[in-house]
């Protein structure tokens, strides 16, 4: 098995490594760099749990070789909240309970970030279609759509996020 030297930027830091030609990008991130926030769901590019950003564009890191990322700028979930505070997108997911088991969440966050960066004023339909690239088996997607729209609004400075998640405390609270 041939090995190759690669030089990448991961979450803003330079990383150099010697990797087997068949080393997938997700295995490189998880096992060589210890960035276990990127998850493996199907290993065939169907579910999107392994989504990371490469040069700002979402890629399926389970069906991409690490050598293909050589020279690239990679962003994983670990980059979103390097300090004590969560990223506004993470805060919105939390406020809206846009996650349950949390396994799809890192990929869903990075895909959502890509969508918002590309179109800060995305509509509910565009948000829903945009995240249809990524499977979530828990939430039924509705609260994820809520979170993406709210995060987009907050990131462009429209609102302070609001307290939509707690708007249904009444016993007969209606949602949706």
């Amino acid at each position: 098995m041939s090995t190759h030297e690669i030089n990448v930027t991961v979450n803003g830091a330079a990383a150099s490594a010697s990797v087997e030609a068949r080393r997938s990008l997700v295995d490189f991130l998880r096992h060589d760099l210890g960035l276990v926030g990127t998850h493996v769901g199907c290993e065939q590019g169907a579910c999107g749990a392994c989504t990371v950003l490469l040069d700002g564009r979402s890629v399926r890191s389970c069906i991409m070789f690490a050598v293909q990322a050589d020279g690239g700028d990679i962003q994983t979930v670990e980059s979103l909240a390097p300090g004590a505070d969560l990223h506004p997108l993470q805060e919105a997911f939390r406020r809206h309970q846009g996650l349950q088991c949390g396994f799809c969440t890192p990929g869903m966050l990075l895909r959502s970030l890509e969508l918002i960066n590309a179109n800060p004023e995305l509509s509910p339909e565009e948000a829903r279609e945009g995240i249809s690239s990524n499977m979530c088996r828990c939430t039924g997607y509705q609260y994820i759509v809520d979170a993406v729209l709210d995060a987009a609004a907050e990131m462009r400075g429209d609102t302070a996020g609001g307290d939509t998640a707690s708007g249904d405390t009444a016993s007969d609270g209606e949602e949706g």
Partner: protein
Amino acid sequence: MTVPKVRQHPEHLEWVGKSIPRVEDPKFLRGRGNYIDDYEVPNMLEVAVARSTMAHAKILSIDTSAAEAVPGVVAIVTSENVADHVNPNPDFGPSPERHTWHCLAVDKVRYMGEGIAAVAATSRAVAEDAAELIEVEYAPLEPLTDMHEALEDDAPLVHEALGSNIPFQRNFVFGDVEGDFAAADVIVRDTLRWGRSGGQPLETVGAVADYDAATGMMTIHANSLTLTHFLFTMANTLRVPSNKLDIHPHPAGGSFGAKFWEVKTAIIAGMMARVTGRPVKFLQDRLDNIANGDHHGSDRYYEVELAARSDGTMLSVRYKVVDNYGAYIQFGVGQHGNSLAQAIGPYRMNSLQYDLTAVLTNKCQQGAYRGFGSEVGNWILERMVDLLAAELDMDPVELRRKNFIGPEEFPYFIPTGNVYDSGDYEAVLAKTLELFDYEGWRRRQAEMRAEGRHVGIGVCTCQERSVFSATEFWFWFDEPVAAPVTSAPESVTLRVDPMGAVTATLYSNASWGNSAETMVAQFVAEELGVHPEDVTIVYGGTSQGMPATGPGGSRFTIMASGAVEGAAQKIRAKAAKIAAHLLEANEDDLVWEDGGFVVRGSPDRRKELAEISLAAHMFKHSLPEEIETGLEAAHVQDHPYTTMPNPERTDLGVFYPFVGHASHMVVVEVDPETGRVEFLDYTAVHDCGTVVNPRSVGGQVIGGTVQGLGTTLYEEFLYDADGVLRTPSFAEYLIPSALDSPTLRVGHNETPSPYTPYGIKGGGEAGRMMAPSAICAAIDDALGIRIRRLPATPERIVEMVDAKD
């Protein structure tokens, strides 16, 4: 046990009922979930399993020489020697010795994908390389996948020791079925087929095992072993003393039942750890999970008769069901106990018949999937109610309303012996009709139809049983019961430290997307007056553990509420003694208020929990002699309401007593040319008693509904006649995407349970237990067809339309 006493629920609750943000979310949002694949130890090997390429075949020989020669391979165990290392897997089925189940196939393979060899190597990639080099010589046997063929006398046998393919058959009669049918004016009959789907969480099942030859301790980290108080049975499989097996839970990246009790992965990891003397990780890949994950859902064929009077009054129902269990039957026919728990739905009926035949075939075996079989029962009954409505030309809403058990009739004992604790089905229906605007939709539907559009409206009203008791598992045994287990506990330990900060220890694999940590934090906050975000939640391994059953059957929230309540009571009782001493007051004069004790009538004479705890930990000799240092209490919550089945099994006792209810109403537009189903509206109103966190329940309802949508329209583990699994990946096994999923309006009605803390009922499985009924009714209404088989894929819908024309 007799009937538990009726509780008086507090009028004011500080935390229960609030949609607080979930306390477990920050770690998941940061990618720090500590899932099983995130867990690594030095010197760890990884395992890959070589799988059978045949559905049914005698194993003649296995050649591992090429695999052993691969650099990095450390050990291989195969079908030929697996029995030298481990005993058969734990098995709750009837007569497990007649359909023996090992972690790798022994003598013959019984389904495509069954494991034939486990390879431990220095990396997963090397292990997979080696597994592919293992040569197996098979003598093919006739494959058997069809449940009706399995019943024929000359059918090939899946297990020769069983002598047939029928591990269980019994005709249960509850009440005067013959009399009720004789009194009927109308009997509707149908045959219905529920296809096999499964939880398919995005994270597969995995385990990391480490065997210490010096101490004899087998330590296993796993994401799939939640029936903690039964784990001693796995020690027998692994041939270690039960006090030398220590299981540590990791959060599950989704379960939906599929990680309720998946022992095989942990057993393979444990076996390979012992063989190699090194820590071993075995993480299923997606193909392992689909083909060999032991958790396919129900796979049933029904012949059903529903008897009624001409005015629509339902009298009795007869179910004749054949269930295709696949190659093994690890949980017995427990999936039918779930159906029997609510077999009359929300409708007043005095009798029912349940003629059950389980068959074995060359498919992967069944396990648990959200509803555990009761979701099938709901769909069957609702299909029949819709058929009756059509037969009597009654509005499906009116027919249901007419037959509802009334709010004054609870507790209501159904013919099987189980009880419905409380309910107000009319209120749920009324709220659904209002939220959905049923009349408005009927008008709009007429307008759309006039434009040539195929628009349909569907309604269902269904039960959700919650909190199974172990006695549920008795019904498939005659007296004397082989293992008359009655315990299904859940435990929590609460520790208040010297600063007054609270840590809650859980003892099952509680976290699998169900907000378990938030639930516990809200209960601790309610009981001890702390903020939920200040509660630390940790998990105990089994070696220091307490009895626990874990989530499953919508039980965790209720059981945890009782465990926290009990532990908090013990803590407050001790704290009261200390506070009385510190305040120089009589203990009887103290009142617990907002997280501290206050002397009645003297609000300035008060001690906070933190002050009391500091004294409890640090000032032993300032306190009365009998007070031990520390402030910690554990509580085992046993099942709150269990009664024994009778020996004849004409009364199964109370085994699933906290019964919620829901109504779903849905509008679809269907393209008769392509079979595409588009959702125009979807309303779901659920009553799971007192709601702990409305947003979380809403999330469960929506997520469950979308899973139910998948069950209804797309998802199926499809085996062809040769036993070849045609859906081995997410490219063929289609789970709903965001674009397939509707936006729901969710409403909650709250009819508290009289028997649980705060009046909570389980709600985690409910969406999937309702959606198939409502969606099928809507598609029927849109196209003038009748769906009798799930999934109703686009192809099958088009076939039904063509058959009608």
